[in-house]
């Protein structure tokens, strides 16, 4: 039988069976609009409340600080534009990093076109921002700092607690894009001094098209989606009840197995990294090692081979990965993240990302370690920029 090994869990995950079971009745049976007053709407109202409680308990927030959105991108856009528009009387300066997801970067660029100035902090060769840079960047015009919790391409976990503390000291709102972290690592918005946090259901075995923005009580934020009074008037639109239910169930299960999965995936990750680096010459691990790397993230550059080539060769062998460089790209520009950590264009073009998850086994890792070196060899053999 042809192999089918999914190693792109950072791109999206399947919806797990327990989650799907909990979702299903809300399509046809408890289908009411939760804003309705009649008794039939009680079920959908309660379902949303339960989901909100589950999310709040996992990140240690209050229930009423949880707002459901349509995904990580909306949450990021809302946080950044919502803070900007609501606080423009206080200042027009925003700080973020060069390695943010495009949802953050492009929201920031939109604001630059509309009267705001944005500082994009550089990162070091492992992808970490420097606290000193952040401290120096904050001015009396700064209203928001948005630094991702962990990077989606190279797995770098930023010093969130320290950033939170600094922002608190300076009286500046702190938003973090935790899309790659929620469900996978412990988060405590209280002790970490996080004011706003984005998550996305489909990154932790929940459904696509549903996310959360946590907004600390008292934070002044303008709507992104104006309209009805849903979500206490802060995010309009008839609630996506099945999606919200699914996200709530998924985060609860993820939390319950988190410690176990962190250990299991870290071991698999390190076996995969070490295996590749040992078996293939002229490679480079992108991002840090150890505890400051996401437990499921492997990102490696191969000199003399282009990433998309590897992706398709692995696909032929039944392994699904993504390129570290911008996917589906016309590929003149490689990943902004890889360039920001100082990779040459060549190395940046030659990277792939393998991200592990629930169904990943040691056999899967062994299989990749068996086939990948052969693939590299084949492609390097025909590469004009490779000579051994």
């Amino acid at each position, binding site marked *: 039988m042809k192999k089918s090994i999914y190693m*792109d869990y*950072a*791109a*999206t995950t399947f919806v797990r069976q327990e989650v799907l079971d909990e979702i299903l009745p809300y399509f046809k049976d408890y289908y009411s609009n939760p804003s309705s007053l009649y008794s039939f709407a009680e079920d959908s109202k309660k379902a949303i409340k339960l989901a909100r409680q589950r999310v709040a308990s996992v990140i240690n927030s209050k229930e009423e600080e949880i707002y459901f959105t349509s995904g990580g991108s909306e949450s990021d856009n809302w946080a950044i534009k919502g803070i900007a528009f609501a606080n423009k009387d206080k200042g027009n300066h925003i700080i973020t990093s060069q390695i943010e*997801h*495009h949802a953050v970067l492009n929201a920031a660029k939109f604001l630059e076109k509309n009267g705001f100035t944005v500082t994009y902090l550089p990162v070091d060769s492992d992808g970490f921002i420097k606290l000193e840079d952040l401290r120096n960047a904050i001015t009396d015009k700064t209203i928001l700092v948005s630094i991702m919790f962990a990077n*989606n*391409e190279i797995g770098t976990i930023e010093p969130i607690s320290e950033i939170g503390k600094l922002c608190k000291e300076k009286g500046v709102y702190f938003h973090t894009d935790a899309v790659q972290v929620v469900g996978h690592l412990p988060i405590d918005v209280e002790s970490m001094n996080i004011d706003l946090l984005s998550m996305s259901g489909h990154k932790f075995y929940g459904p696509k098209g549903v996310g959360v923005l946590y907004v600390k009580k008292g934070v002044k934020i303008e709507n992104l989606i104006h309209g009805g009074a849903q979500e206490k008037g802060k995010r309009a639109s008839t609630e996506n009840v099945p999606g919200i239910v699914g996200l709530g169930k998924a985060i609860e299960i993820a939390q319950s197995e988190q410690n176990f999965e962190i250990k299991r995936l870290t071991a698999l990750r390190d076996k995969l990294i070490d295996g590749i680096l040992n078996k293939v010459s002229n490679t480079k691990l992108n991002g840090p090692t150890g505890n400051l790397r996401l437990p499921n993230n492997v990102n490696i550059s191969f000199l*003399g*081979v*282009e990433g*998309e*080539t590897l992706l*398709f060769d692995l696909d*032929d062998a039944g392994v699904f990965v*993504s390129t570290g*460089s*911008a*996917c*589906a*790209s*016309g*590929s*003149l*520009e*490689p*990943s902004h993240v890889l360039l920001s950590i100082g990779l040459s*264009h*060549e190395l940046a*073009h030659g990277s792939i990302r393998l991200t592990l998850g629930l169904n990943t086994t040691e056999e899967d890792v062994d299989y990749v370690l068996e086939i990948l070196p052969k693939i590299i060899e084949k492609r390097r*053999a*025909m*590469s*004009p*920029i*490779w000579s051994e």
Partner: protein
Amino acid sequence: MYSEKVMDHFRNPRNVGIISDADGIGEVGNPRCGDIMKVYIKVKDNIIEDVKYETYGCASAIASSSIASELIKGKTLEEAWKITNKAVAEALDGLPPIKMHCSVLAEEAIHKAINDYRKSHNLELWEERTHAEVIKEHQCNN
């Protein structure tokens, strides 16, 4: 995303390699841009007797060089010169719009190789097209 033909040539690229005593060599692309094509031709009686290439680049760049090598093999230099990037793409049953520039690389590499041959034989150089394709940006980033 790619046609079967692209994937076939990507999986089993034809005529891969180098010709150590090539009569013409054309190299285009830039590792900065993630693509380099190096085409070697052997010419006899104005006919491309043999062609080999090395390609670094995406799947469609590899497929483009492979099919292009087949298209020009056995052709006169004039015939080979007339093979446009469009012909390359068509021979592959099409390329996605953002990947058309890979076929441009193939056209250019062949032109360079032919002019390299003409130069070393003190023949007048033919006028190469400028990189006509607009390369669209496109990102995804999950």
